[in-house]
């Protein structure tokens, strides 16, 4: 199977889901409409043999429209193909359907995207923060979050009082 066959199959099965196909540096990227990502993943997994989700990366494009981008990295082990899917969402409504129903291991990757970039996943079974504690209110990988952090944003345990003697 080749990438052309994969894309042709996807276009035939889900004609309205694919926005753009880009090829560069020997890698294929498909830009998918955000609300169809779960369907695209389901077709890729059940019909085209993409059985392993490697990674989900969240990117802050820092643009006024379609600010956030999610990058899915999928593998078809039997065919030796690596495919990249992309979806974009708005800053005002950063919600994307969760793909945990298709790839259970998307769970933690989506939690990471929520924690670091503040993208919410519809239908995620357990959308908690993963690195930062729940008490933290910011999403540190956004471009408008300062490198040095925000003073007082994270409550720290108080210093124990020095002993009297």
């Amino acid at each position, binding site marked *: 199977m080749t990438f052309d066959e994969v894309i042709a199959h996807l276009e035939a099965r889900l004609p309205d889901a694919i926005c753009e196909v880009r090829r560069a540096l020997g890698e294929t990227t498909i830009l998918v409409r955000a609300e169809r990502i779960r369907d695209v993943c389901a077709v890729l997994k059940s019909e085209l043999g993409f059985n*392993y989700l*490697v990674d989900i990366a969240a990117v*802050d494009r820092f643009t006024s429209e379609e600010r956030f981008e999610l990058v899915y990295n999928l593998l078809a082990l039997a065919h030796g193909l*690596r495919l990249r899917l992309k979806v974009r969402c708005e800053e005002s409504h950063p919600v994307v359907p969760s793909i945990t129903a298709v*790839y259970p*291991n998307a769970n933690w990757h989506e939690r990471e995207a929520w924690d670091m970039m503040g993208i919410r996943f519809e239908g995620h079974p357990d959308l908690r923060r993963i690195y930062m504690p729940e008490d933290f209110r910011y999403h*540190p990988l956004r471009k408008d979050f300062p*490198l040095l952090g925000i003073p007082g944003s994270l409550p720290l345990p108080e210093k124990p009082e020095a002993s009297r003697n």
Partner: protein
Amino acid sequence: MDTLTRTRRRLEALIEESHLEIWREHNRALLRRLESKHSSVEFIGDALSTEMVLNIGPQHPATHGVLRVVARLDGEIIRSCVIDIGYLHRGIEKVAEYKTFQEFMPYTDRMDYLSPYSNNVALCLAVEKLAQIEVPERAQYIRTIACELARLLAHLLWLGSMVMDAGAVSMFLWTFREREKIYDIFDLIAGARLTVSHCRIGGVASDLTPEAIEAIRAFIRNFPRELRAWEKLLNKNRIWLERNEGIGVVSAERALELGLTGPNLRASGVPYDVRTFEPYLVYDRVEFEVPVRTEGDNLARYYVRMEEMRQSVRIIEQCLQQLPPGPIRNENAKLSYPDKQEVYYSMEGLIHDFMYTHWGVCPPKGAEVYAAIEAPKGELGFYIQSDGTGFPWRLKIRSPSFCNIQALESILEGAMVSDVVVLIGGLDPVMGEADK
């Protein structure tokens, strides 16, 4: 009827119906003795049939770092558990956006600190693919050798600590003796033992000296003998087998669903290894086998890693034989650091060194790339988006330990509490990498 008598009655009834099937009399006598010592002891029920919540870590030596497991126990069985990570989160993906690609390299040393060289190589390969930088052959061979040494380094720590988790401490000392030798080799290769940062974008920092090559030769001559001795000790060791056989079984489909990676995935029967799937460096020029087991239990993970170490020795041997002469860095000074001789003794060299440090290598605007290597723990990948400057717009690290720990949660559910430590040891996570 006073309290004591009532308690005793309840105790007798409890013992009668309890799970204490062996040594009933003995246990009864023990409980009576306990009761006579503390007349106020109250028996709420059989400890084995009551649920309790146990918190393991984050400060626990057996969790290999700062992993925290909160488990709900039914007797000795873990009914459900939650894994909490992030205690070592340093935000290195954020830091990366404020560093040039080369400046970021020392941070990668501190991800999987058991195999720093692999992390360096993964970053370099991603940047080189992104900016289309050619790397001389000799450098690729040096990287391959060092990557395989790093794999030995990581697997040796895994072996020592896992056998220690199962109760044998002497093994730890033997594997650490061998690790010490590899650290000495890294000292000869890179001038540093642990945080090597020896790779450069477009090549490596320094050539292998004859002394270093001799040290590597001596090491791989001796190492298979050590490996055989350890296998002799473990492969038929009843305690070792019984602690590991049939523990934490994961089928091939389940392993893919859980997102296991590296040796853990291969122990479940999925022959996925980035070295053969998408050959990088010079892995397509050397002969080696990818060990795969189908049992999917902790013992299979042990066999896979042991065999991987043997294959690593094979790869290093072949690389040393094939090691071609030639330059060790790309000679275009816009793409890679110039030689130190040039920097010290020529004006252009100095200017290039300055330029490279300040601006770094600038990949085309809008370019993006994902490059992965087979690190000792699994697929380690860097996804980079460039905005045309010397700094990455976004650098996402796909760390194998993160994925393995995710799978740990469902592997632990249904296991015995006494197996937790062995299971964590078998999956071999490194928190520095999982928490980024």
